[in-house]
């Protein structure tokens, strides 16, 4: 099985090279046969990458410890789910996953029937081929997943205990699908530059690809945050770790791109900006891979040191120089059709939104690489931690939230300050009593009041959009309110799906604000029968004990949770001690409600006296971050769902003979 995988990988490099040359030369010389053979090479490459990937999965599942990768990331006592997850749990496997998904995406994009296909497809296939070829070469040289050990082992080291969590099986996968997905809009952007046809066609074709990639990246970030919260045991979900930042940066530029592409679709402007954003987003996804593998940053996510970091950084440099060089070459052509943007309009709000998103991405990048810069200049690495990122990004985030409301009511082409202000008057007057209530319940912090006020204000603006649309539809059709609302959303999925995503963002900001500002933490030493108060709860330690499980011994405590003199449940934090000598892993116990999360970690114990040290956190409204995540997924799916007219169009195009291909 390993030989099959190894040879598939070697062959994939040659096939990808052929795909790039055939597609690029075919497009350049106008040779249809070359283009067609390049397409079939895309299918062959996807097949070979699939064979290699399935081979590695097979080796992991069957526990073939002759292979270094299997021995490094699995063990005999590891369950099937985590054996499969080990495929992307290590360096080589995750790179192979990248190649596999990228070649599958390439095959789909190459054969998909879409607007402007004849013009763009060969360049798109060639561009994606270059990226896939890079990964294939890396996998065949410095990161070989099918490396044999000098002598077969009896057992493996096992998957990192921190990764043995259901959320961790999904988090890397969704993150990679997001990263890889942005290769497609990037390839179309490059194709638009090569062909000199940078009108909105490439944006219309890649809109769904961009949204799908954005959705996966959003899910990856949220799953990662949840994993950190439930597994790492420090009571938080985001620590501004370099690899966390690496996922946030492309998300920020991609979010800017999703908004600015709407402007180009509607008004034909921002052409260069959109291509530049898609290049930046793609480059940042590769930069994230560099961060994980360079070894120059400390991170809970880092894989290893070695030459990979330098290789990826070189590739990032080549992509940046090549893509922006191409952009500079096409600059005069793209510039000539520019249209002005009115100061007060939806377009201007989108431009400002882009400025803020890109500024935030730059800020995060700057704070992430600054320690390395200081090490280069002074020889000592300066720490740039959470206080910097929180201080710098918080005002930008509040501005973006406010802009989300203002942009919603601004009209396309041209509006006036008076008209926008009139539209915002009702939400503004709804916000005032809400802020008074916040003050009344004891919130005095100006920044918190500003954040909560912004959430209420923008929430009111967005909900009013649903209300006005529904009311208009009820007047026209006589439908009941629920029916009118469902049909309104169904008929304008892109718009109202987007508004749902806005509400989701508000919920996430609410959760971040409340848990961040009003979170409480205490450390207590308890012995059985002791009671400790935490907010409205009382926790009674019932006792501690141990039990054996496959591959580990578990020490656990049970705490009775009481509220208003009523028992409402039992929390059981644990510490896992692994038989293979891996560092013990705490297992957090969480009681999560919409009001607050009661979060308990066993931080240590004195077995001789029967005392246990607990870290107890009370995180108000933290679960609203996850609720916002669910709504974000729902809103994006609604926005992605094809309209009936689009489905008819696809059916028409897919009718044999409906379109002539080269």
């Amino acid at each position: 099985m390993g030989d099959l995988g190894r040879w598939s990988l070697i062959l994939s490099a040659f096939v990808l090279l052929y795909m790039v040359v055939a597609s690029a030369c075919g497009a350049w010389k106008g040779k249809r046969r070359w283009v067609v053979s390049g397409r079939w090479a895309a299918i062959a490459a996807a097949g070979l990458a699939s064979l290699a990937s399935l081979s590695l999965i097979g080796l992991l599942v069957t526990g073939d410890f002759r292979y270094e990768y299997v021995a490094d990331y699995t063990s005999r006592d590891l369950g099937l789910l985590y054996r499969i997850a080990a495929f992307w749990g290590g360096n080589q496997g995750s790179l192979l996953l990248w190649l596999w998904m990228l070649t599958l995406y390439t095959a789909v994009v190459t054969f998909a029937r879409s607007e402007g296909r004849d013009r763009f497809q060969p360049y798109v296939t060639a561009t994606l081929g270059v990226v896939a070829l890079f990964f294939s070469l890396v996998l065949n040289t410095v990161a070989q997943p099918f490396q044999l050990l000098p002598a077969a082992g009896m057992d493996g080291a096992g998957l990192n205990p921190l990764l043995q969590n259901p959320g961790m099986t999904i988090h890397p996968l969704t993150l990679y699908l997001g990263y890889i997905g942005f290769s497609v809009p990037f390839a179309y952007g490059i194709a638009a530059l090569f062909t000199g046809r940078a009108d909105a066609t490439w944006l219309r074709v890649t809109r769904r690809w961009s949204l799908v990639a954005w959705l996966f990246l959003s899910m990856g970030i949220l799953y990662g945050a949840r994993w950190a919260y439930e597994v790492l045991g420090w009571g938080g979900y985001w620590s501004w770790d370099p690899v966390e930042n690496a996922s946030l940066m492309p998300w920020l530029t991609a979010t800017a791109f999703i908004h600015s592409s709407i402007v180009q679709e509607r008004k034909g402007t921002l052409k260069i900006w959109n291509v530049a954003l898609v290049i930046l987003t793609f480059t940042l996804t590769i930069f994230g891979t560099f961060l994980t593998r360079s070894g120059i940053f400390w991170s809970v996510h880092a894989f290893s040191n070695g030459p990979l970091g330098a290789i990826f950084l070189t590739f990032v440099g080549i992509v940046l120089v090549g893509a922006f060089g191409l952009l500079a070459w096409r600059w005069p052509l793209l510039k000539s059709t520019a249209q002005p943007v009115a100061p007060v309009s939806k377009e201007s709000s989108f431009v400002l939104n882009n400025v803020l998103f890109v500024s935030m991405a730059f800020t995060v990048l700057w704070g992430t690489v600054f320690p390395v810069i200081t090490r280069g200049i002074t020889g000592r690495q300066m720490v740039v931690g959470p206080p910097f990122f929180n201080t710098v990004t918080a005002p930008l985030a509040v501005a973006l939230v406010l802009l989300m409301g203002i942009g919603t009511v601004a009209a396309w082409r041209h509006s006036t300050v008076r008209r926008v202000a009139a539209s915002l008057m009702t939400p503004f007057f709804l916000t005032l009593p809400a802020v008074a209530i916040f003050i009344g319940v004891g919130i005095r912090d100006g920044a918190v009041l500003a954040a909560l006020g912004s959430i209420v204000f923008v929430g009111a603006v967005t909900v009013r959009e649903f209300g006005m649309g529904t009311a208009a539809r009820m007047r026209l059709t006589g439908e009941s309110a629920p029916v009118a609302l469902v049909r309104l959303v169904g008929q304008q999925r892109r718009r109202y799906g987007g508004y749902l995503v806005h509400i989701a963002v508000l919920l996430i900001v609410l959760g971040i604000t409340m848990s961040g500002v009003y979170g409480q933490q205490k450390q207590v030493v308890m012995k059985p029968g002791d009671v400790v108060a935490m907010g409205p709860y009382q926790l009674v330690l019932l006792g501690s004990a141990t039990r054996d499980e496959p591959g580990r011994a578990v020490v656990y405590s049970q705490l009775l949770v009481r509220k208003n003199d009523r028992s409402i449940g039992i929390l059981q934090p644990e510490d896992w001690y692994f038989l293979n000598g891996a560092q013990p892993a705490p297992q957090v116990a969480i009681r999560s409600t919409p009001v607050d999360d009661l979060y308990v970690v066993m931080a240590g114990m004195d077995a001789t006296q029967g005392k246990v040290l607990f870290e107890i956190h009370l995180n108000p409204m933290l679960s609203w971050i996850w609720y916002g995540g669910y709504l974000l997924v729902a809103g994006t799916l609604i926005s992605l769902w094809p309209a009936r007219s689009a489905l008819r169009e696809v059916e028409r195009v897919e009718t044999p003979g409906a379109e002539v291909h080269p």
Partner: protein
Amino acid sequence: MTRACSQRRLGFPGHSNRSVLFRIMFWIVFLAASLGADLVWAAGRSVSWQEVLDLASEYHPPGCPPTLTAATCQEKQAYDLRLEILRLLEDGKSRPEIRQILVSEYGNDILSAPPPTGIGILVWAVPAAAVAAGLVVFVLIVRGRRPPSGG
């Protein structure tokens, strides 16, 4: 204690795997020793734990991962630093005084964000300059002096 699997009270009498027992005891002793200080002052302190953590979030204990502060790091040195912050608070020291004491004791590396002095000023000034430049570009775009982002 309702788990079906085998259970024992703490102390693990007759544990079949001595190496596991040894490891568990090692970690227990290690954690107990490193947290011993916390055990001593856990009861009867006048400064709230929340105050300690709020202040601890501004410091980075030497040896802790760069992304964790003294409030979130779970290494021994973080516990020690929290204890030191507690003592300083109990002595009636103000936040600037505590900052001065800790910086004189550990150097600027103790701060979890660089101070805006020396090369540290760059980390704060560059993002501010970037935002300002972005806003200038925005104004230029909407005033029509330049085509929107060149496009």
